């Protein structure tokens, strides 16, 4: 069990290599088998994880390139574990949703490996390596298997994110030259007293902020996202929104907030303003979309905006109560997980509609409830989950985030609550257009859910209910980490 995390990272790479030599028709099965193995490893990781113990666990530490402070340092805490589990959950889901050949599957597996690495690496250089490693497969997957506008979208996605990454790397180099370490835990401790001084600190902050803001994305660095999600094949969209977008939020929690508490406090209102803009403008823009995929993409920005709102709120206001900090952190963690599940499910449903109809515009459907009641019913559950209906998973995270942020930034939170309203409008409008009214002629022959589709949908939906009704089992994963981080942000 000593090298569990390493095994977890290497397994998908091994899978990708195996895929290079097998027959095209076996590719998906083999990829799925490797996914199952990864999931088994992730569960083993979970079983071995002591939820009561603070700090990193199952740490693997080896020298790598001592001259530049690069260490092979892996470890998990509650947050990392949560994201590893989310990754292990969503990749099989995506594989089931998307047919693909050898190349497609191999690239997906590479991306999976990069994600495991990103969520477990505890040394900046190693982290950055994985962080960038995820970009290349994502780019190729969009570029090769994407939709109509794939070329422009893929390029925009790559260049935009890469630019942010370069800025972040430069910032960390600046930090390294002063502080002499890339160890994230050590940097977080140094951050309490100011990691850098003077203008250098601001430059470094700006670089890292840009990198992460593009990745999440935060308004106004978000315009690559609708294009990329719209153009990507469904399985890739699911992973992009479900897991890749979490890398940015994870980065905010791990890198920016602990390293630059002082800068964030000074910029507090501005950052909160950007988060509120993310929430409100993205939901409004989603309202204006007629392409279902683009609509879901915009709501992704909106939902991650809530995470950033909460994080900025507790980081920007110095005397925040312990309960509020714990509420926000718990809320953000669970929102990360919930959004991963729900948004992926929404993309999956859009994929089902597109597969059946060949189109995915809001106006290409009508009266589906009469033709495909099961599809409509289950899709409605995902939509209600996304709009934060209590009893489903979306509500818990949003409630906790708002609870914490309202206490310290009431005005911003109140404005952000508009996002909750507009999200409801967006989904109800979609339901009205898709499901209700007289059956559209073009939809007269659409088949309802097949058994294989039900086998995917039912467990995922059950998970949504479980998270919404009795979420304690997820909270148990990270409560200790929340307590520890809440102290760190004090």
């Amino acid at each position, binding site marked *: 069990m000593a090298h569990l995390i390493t095994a977890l990272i290497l397994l998908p790479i091994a899978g990708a290599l195996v895929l290079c030599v097998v027959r095209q028709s076996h590719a998906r099965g083999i990829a799925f088998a490797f996914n199952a193995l990864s999931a088994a490893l992730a569960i083993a990781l979970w079983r071995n994880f002591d939820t009561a113990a603070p700090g990193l666990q199952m740490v693997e530490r080896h020298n790598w390139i001592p001259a530049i402070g690069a260490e092979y340092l892996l470890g998990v805490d509650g947050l990392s574990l949560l994201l590893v589990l989310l990754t292990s959950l969503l990749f099989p889901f995506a594989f089931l949703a998307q047919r693909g050949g050898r190349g497609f599957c191999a690239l997906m597996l590479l991306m999976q490996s990069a994600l495991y690495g990103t969520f477990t690496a505890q040394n900046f250089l190693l982290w950055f390596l994985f962080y960038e490693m995820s970009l290349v497969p994502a780019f190729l997957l969009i570029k090769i298997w994407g939709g109509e506008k794939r070329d422009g979208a893929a390029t*925009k996605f790559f*260049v*935009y994110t890469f630019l942010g990454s370069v800025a972040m790397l430069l910032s960390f180099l600046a930090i390294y030259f002063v502080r002499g370490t890339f160890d994230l835990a050590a940097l977080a401790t140094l951050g309490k007293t100011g990691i850098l001084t003077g203008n250098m600190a601001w430059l470094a902050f700006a670089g890292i902020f840009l990198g992460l803001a593009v990745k999440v994305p935060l*308004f*106004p*660095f*978000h*315009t*690559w996202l*609708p294009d990329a999600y719209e153009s990507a094949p469904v399985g890739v969209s699911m992973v992009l929104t479900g897991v890749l977008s979490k890398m940015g939020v994870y980065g905010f929690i791990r890198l920016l907030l602990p390293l630059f508490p002082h800068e964030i406090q000074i910029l507090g209102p501005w950052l909160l303003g950007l988060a509120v803009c993310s929430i409100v*403008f*993205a939901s*409004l*823009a989603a*309202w*204006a979309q007629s392409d279902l995929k683009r609509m879901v993409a915009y709501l992704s920005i909106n939902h991650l905006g809530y995470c950033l709102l909460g994080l900025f709120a507790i980081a920007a206001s110095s005397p925040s109560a312990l*309960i*509020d900090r*714990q*509420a926000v*952190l*718990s*809320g953000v963690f669970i929102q990360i997980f919930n959004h991963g599940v729900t948004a992926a499910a929404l993309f999956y449903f859009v994929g089902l509609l597109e597969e059946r109809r060949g189109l995915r515009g809001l106006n290409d459907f009508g*009266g589906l*409830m*009469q033709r495909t009641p099961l599809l409509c019913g289950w899709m409605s559950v995902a939509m*209600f989950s996304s709009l934060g*209906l*209590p*009893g489903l998973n979306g*509500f*818990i995270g949003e*409630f906790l985030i*708002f*609870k914490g942020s*309202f206490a310290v930034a*009431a005005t911003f*939170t*109140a404005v952000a*609550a*508009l996002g*909750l*309203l*507009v999200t*409801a*409008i967006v989904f*109800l*409008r979609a339901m*009205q257009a898709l*499901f*209700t*009214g*007289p059956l559209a002629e073009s939809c007269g022959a659409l088949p309802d859910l097949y058994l294989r589709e039900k086998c995917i949908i039912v467990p995922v939906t059950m998970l949504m209910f479980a998270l919404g009704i*009795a979420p*304690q089992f997820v*909270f148990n994963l990270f*409560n200790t980490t*929340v*307590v520890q981080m*809440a102290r760190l942000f004090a």
Partner: protein
Amino acid sequence: MTSWILAHLWLIPAAPLAMSLLILGLAGSRPRTGSALAIIGQVVALGLAVVAFVPTLETPGFRTFQNFTWFTFGEQALRIGWVLDPLAAAMLVMITFVGLWIFVFSTGYMAGDKNFSRFFAYLSFFSAAMLGVVIANSLLLLFVCWELVGLASYLLIGFWIHKPSAAAATKKAFITTRIGDIGLFLGILWLYGGSGTLLFYDGGNGCLEKTGLLALGASASFIALLIFSGAAGKSGQFPLHVWLPDAMEGPTPVSALIHAATMVAAGVFLVARMYPLFSFGALDGVTPSLTVVVWIGVVTALMGALIAVAQADIKRILAYSTISQLGLMMVSLGVGGVAAGIMHLLAHGFFKALLFLGSGSVIHGCHHEQDIRKMGGLRRIMPVTFLAYAIGMMALSGVPLLFSGAWTKEEILHATAHWPRSPVPYYLMMAGVVLTALYMTRQMICVFFGKPREAAERAHESPSVMTIPLIVLAVCTIALSAVLTPAWPWLHSYLTGEPAQFDLGRLIQPMLFVSLALVAAGIGLGILFYRNAGRDDPLARSQPLLFRFLENKMWLDELYAKTVIAWSAMFSKLSDWMDRHIWDGLARTIGGAGQLIGIVSANFDERGINAGVDESAAGTRGLGRLIAARHSGRIQTYMGVIAVGMLALLVLYAWLT
């Protein structure tokens, strides 16, 4: 038994919820199975509600609660729980009892519908959520159930989903109530932050108890107002009332259950539940938040009653009447008559359900015609429905002595008359009573009296499965009066916890004559106006402008469409446009600038540096080629050149010397 039900209060909502899931799970089975299961669930809930009702009778001011941890985040436990007190118990009995008869009625009304059993699954789900609202001992749990009630309402209004009008109405209902819910949500956050708990009662530490309220201080008023915005959305208070009339697109039993008896009362219930917060820091019974409640209620009550006068759809009249009555209840709560407001809520639950089911029977009998101008003379054709409807009408109008609504209305007028802030609400409420009697008389005359018009000609009485619920509810409407009179104000004392004494001498109070005069005026005017009215409305003839104003619901829908809705749609288009052109434009500009720099430097490379180096290289090469051309390797040329050179040198030498 007593302690058992207190520990298992959750079973009351759980019974219909389980049935709802069971029916959905058994999709495709025989429709009768679905309705039977739903009715069983409702009977169980009613039985348990009665069991829970008993202990609350024994001790005045009875209250017991049970709290538990929902989940722990960080080190904080989020606790929820349920509470049983007279308010909850009375609501439980009313909801399950009225609900049961509506379920029974539905088996007749919905017979033959393609999605018959799904309808009962939704009804059961609604019932479960509503019962959850009532027993919640935590504002968070209440909000959870509150939203589920909204979902159930969404599913039921849009039940006939192939009708575009139903689809539009259900969307409107969900979104309009959600506007109020956003306020409620913020109120919850504020309350949680301020008092540190969302539990109502927690052995002295709840947010409605002394310590919790004191911790809130001056913010209590703002929190109360935010909570009221949620109540206003659900209970159809101005300006969020617009969804309720449209919600009549749903099947009529839905209108009876949700939009008359129970769900719309949830807002009133919420204010009553949170009353310690609303009245916190009251001077003379008046707080800023309660004052807002009073005025919103007054506006709503009067507006609803006015609009009802000019509607032609039998269900819409009742819908506006509901809005008006809900306003009345809010006024009552606002002026301090909490018990009176809740009593009216309970009585209204019975007689409004009766009226809606009666209208359902009429619509069913008239082959789904809802326009009262096309009915008439139904009293002979549908005698049972007529009788039941008449009882409901008299209870709603407030005809004294026999009918429950009259006593509760009288008590509300009484409470309003003593409001220290202003006498205006009292006078406006009196006008409301007259109007209520007027529009109900109009409806009665148009539907049941006169000559049968086209829709009434082929009408028939409804089957007994529909008329029996009518009879039961009609009997209850009258029987309820027994516990409402000032002579024996049992329900009042049950709700307030003060002992009730029987004193026949108090039966006749001055207010009785006031309300008698008002109701008589309303009914008299109604008979006078509409006696001979057939197809054309006398008001439309004499005051066409006013009539059109009321007929078109004061053009509020149009106003909203032109303002709030148009603006927000515009903002959404604007956001999309900004995204495409400004934010993406900015990114593209930066990208373009990078590209431009690339092109410039490439050009500089090509034309400047590259070309310069190329030039000099070419020059060198040309020179070289020129020189190389001379090295032809031919001896003769070399010799010739040498000879010429020698000759030149010789000439030079000779010339120099």
